[in-house]
């Protein structure tokens, strides 16, 4: 079984490298070991989304039963998205679960993930806090997602208001990421975030 998995990954690896998306720097795959079971993926944040300009790193684990079972994929880069856990990077996407088909490839997975960044599904959330913000206050969600892209994925949009609020919390002795999570969860309301952190 493992034989098919390695054979397929080898082939798919070549496919991705030759694909036009790589030429456009939209997706990228790297091997992490010789047995083709662990890979590093990268996708570029799609244009006209809060993720634009960011580069998101993925962990890809290939099960022994691949391609009859889907690869296990999660975000290493922290991201603010309704269908991706802001804590663990776990992804809620049907093709990584029951809608997987053996004829799909790493390339289709990466492109589907890119499509997920363009079109979130807030009614099928992985991260309830993010999904609620998305549904109740879309502008606030976009601002937060953009800020996270800047902070973790190298995105170009700097939001000084956010940075200042985070700095205020850091000055109070809070760790940076923890401060960002608290502020993001409370729509950047410094008072409520502080309250939650110190309660």
């Amino acid at each position, binding site marked *: *079984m493992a034989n*098919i998995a390695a*054979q*397929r990954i080898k*082939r798919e690896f070549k496919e991705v490298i030759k694909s036009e998306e790589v030429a456009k720097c939209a997706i990228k795959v790297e091997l992490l070991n010789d047995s083709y079971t662990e890979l590093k993926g990268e996708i570029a944040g799609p244009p006209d989304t809060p993720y634009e300009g960011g580069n998101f790193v993925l962990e890809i684990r290939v099960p022994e*039963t691949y*391609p*009859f*079972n889907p690869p296990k994929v999660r975000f290493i880069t922290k991201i603010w998205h309704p269908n991706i856990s802001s804590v663990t990077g776990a992804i809620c996407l049907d093709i990584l679960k029951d809608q997987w*088909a*053996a*004829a*799909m490839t790493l390339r*289709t997975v990466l492109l589907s993930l890119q499509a997920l960044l363009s079109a979130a599904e807030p009614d099928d959330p992985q991260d309830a806090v993010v999904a609620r913000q998305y549904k109740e206050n879309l502008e606030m969600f976009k601002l937060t997602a953009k800020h996270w892209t800047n902070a973790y994925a190298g995105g170009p949009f700097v939001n000084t208001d956010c940075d200042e609020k985070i700095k205020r919390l850091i000055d109070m002795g809070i760790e940076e990421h923890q401060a960002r999570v608290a502020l993001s969860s409370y729509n950047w309301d410094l008072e409520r975030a502080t309250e939650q952190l110190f309660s």
Partner: protein
Amino acid sequence: MEDTMTTSQGGESDMDYSDNEYYDYYNTNDDIDIEQLDPRKIDPEYFEFSCLLEEQVDRLLNETVETLSNNLQIPPSLAKVLLHSNQWNISELTKKFNENSTRTLIAARIEPATPPGSLLLTRYVNCSVCVTVQPLDRFYSLSCAHMFCRDCWSMHFEVQINQGISTGIACMARNCIVLAPEDFVLKHLQRPNMREKYQQFSFQDYVKSHPQLRFCPGPNCSIVVHSKEVKAKRSTCNQCKTVFCFKCGCDYHAPTECQVIKKWLTKCADDSETANYISAHTKDCPKCHICIEKNGGCNHMQCYNCKHDFCWMCLGDWKSHGSEYYECSRYRENPNIAHESVHAQAREALKKYLHYYERWENHSKSLKLEEQTLEKLRSRINQKVMSGLGTWIDWQYLFTAANLLAKCRYTLQYTYPYAYYMDTGSRKELFEYQQAQLEAEIENLSWKIERAETTDRGDLENQMDIAEKRRTTLLKDFLDV
């Protein structure tokens, strides 16, 4: 008891009688009328069903598959997929198929929504799953024409079956939902244990999708109950003797409906902490305040200390219960509740729930004590027989009575969730009146069984008859299935 398919008209009328007088004498019309009384009308719990073994179910399913396959002129394996996705309803399916066969086949995921493209017929093909080039004759596809090599198909099926999937295995192509029919799967499974697993899983899927079939819920029981009527009626497994509701497969629950009993049981599970705390297992005698533990089924208590007779439910004097009105089963709502505060309303809601819950729990506990009661009965009868009061046979009627008591108490237990979810009004009043009547007769019966001193059974038989009549009357009026 209801082990069915025993429709009982004899073949006597077919016999050849040469003597006309004899014929008239024994075969009057009256006689036939009595025999032909419709049991459905007399017994509200009457239910025709049969207990089938796995082979019998297989035969039944295969007959259905064959009929449809002949009707529609399609292969049996496709007929099976169609039936599985259409609740095994042949007539409905035939109608749908004749109206629009393509749409029916697409809806059942037998054919792809868009017709497949033309096949490329080269001698060697690259399998997109294992990425190896192989001769064309090693390739297979479903109706969607997505070609994959033999080895990949069998690997795909093995992986899916190991995850418990059988009738729902789809094609391996992206976005293709066409299902693999049984013969296609079996063709690609070589290992005997995988074939066995597949057949076992798909059998379960078929039975579960068939409204007229129900797995016996008894532990390790493989019996399947079959009935033409899909109703919430009592069925009894002839192997493990488990009694359950045919429709939902849970404990039998007449007169309450399937959804209502589910709601009630969830509620009980959620609120049980409070309820357990409040409905402790012991109560104090209302007269001498000695602590009493209830160890039998009867609600008519007699304090062993002061001999005071009282009702376990309401702790009132039993004298007020003997006559016409037994009101312990009825919940009296506070008429001014609408004007009370939210807090008071919440308290009232809890009080109402606890009222019904306590009675539900109480009867359930009484039933659990049944074995103990029977044991006591046995030793008491032994004593009587030893001291020369009747023979063992003379006392057997008490066991019959105890069985009937359990049956009545069981129904009574399930009247409480029914009453809890009823809207206030005249129908509820009628229900609670009948419930109270049943409860009173059950308590009388219980009391009489526990204290039967003679082999004179007239009085007890009478009481049994009354209790059972009350039970069937209540079910006739309120069992709505």
